[in-house]
């Protein structure tokens, strides 16, 4: 049994939520980017990125295999996926990337979704900081044993 297991669990969640925040920032920053990557000589608009979270169960599987029962573990980011929702078509003939009919393909970033993701990530981050502080204060209290 690892003494600092509780810390590692919270730390993994803090890392994951910070990454979610970074991805949201990237999505918002690129909400108007029409030239993200060049495919067959044509510029493709930016695609919204989504973070895939997974239970970090390697350690619990290892502990179970060693007969120590299931040890609870943290969370990890398994993948950063591209959202395959269709791109928005905006009529803007003056845009350099407009097609013959005057429509421009804009990124599929939805501001509302991004804001919701952002709030969710920041709230989860706060909850995990609280959990980390609680674990820390318990260990501090344990140091007072026998005083």
């Amino acid at each position: 049994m690892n003494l600092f297991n509780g810390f590692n669990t919270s730390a993994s969640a803090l890392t994951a939520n910070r990454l979610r925040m970074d991805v949201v920032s990237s999505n918002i920053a690129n909400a108007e980017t029409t030239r993200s990557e060049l495919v067959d000589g044509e510029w493709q608009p930016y695609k919204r990125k989504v973070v895939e979270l997974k239970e970090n169960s390697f350690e619990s599987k290892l502990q179970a295999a060693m007969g120590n029962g299931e040890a609870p573990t943290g969370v990890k980011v398994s993948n950063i996926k591209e959202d395959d929702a269709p791109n928005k078509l905006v009529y803007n003939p003056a845009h350099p990337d407009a097609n013959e009919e005057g429509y421009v393909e804009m990124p599929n970033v939805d501001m509302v979704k991004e804001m919701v993701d952002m709030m969710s990530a920041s709230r989860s981050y706060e909850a995990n900081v609280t959990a980390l502080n609680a674990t820390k204060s318990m260990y501090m209290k344990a140091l007072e044993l026998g005083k």
Partner: protein
Amino acid sequence: MNVFQSIRPLEQALNASMVQQRTITSNISNVDTPNYKRQTVSFQDTLQEATKNLQSYKSNPKHVPFSNENNASKTVVKTDQNTLNQSNGNNVDTDVEMAELAKNQLWYNAMVEKTNSQFRDLQTAIRGS
């Protein structure tokens, strides 16, 4: 009689509280993980408490021991499969977990205080003043 007999159960309670803390932390960290099921800690000694009234004896030392003879209190981590409160298959309720976190922390502090008072009593007995 062992001097530390009264401290041993407290030590087990402290350990159990730590297991509970890790479980709550794990639940909070997986609050956004699809299909994660919350885990709870159950204590085997509560089960033993319930079976304490069982009158039993062994006529042969090779017999399988009865449950009330096993005094090692163990914690078991269980997965709660029955509830569902998010559409992605996750059943972690942040409010519940935060409340459990606060409760467990206070419980742990109380246990440490109790252990310390036991140690102080021992010290008084040793010094005689």
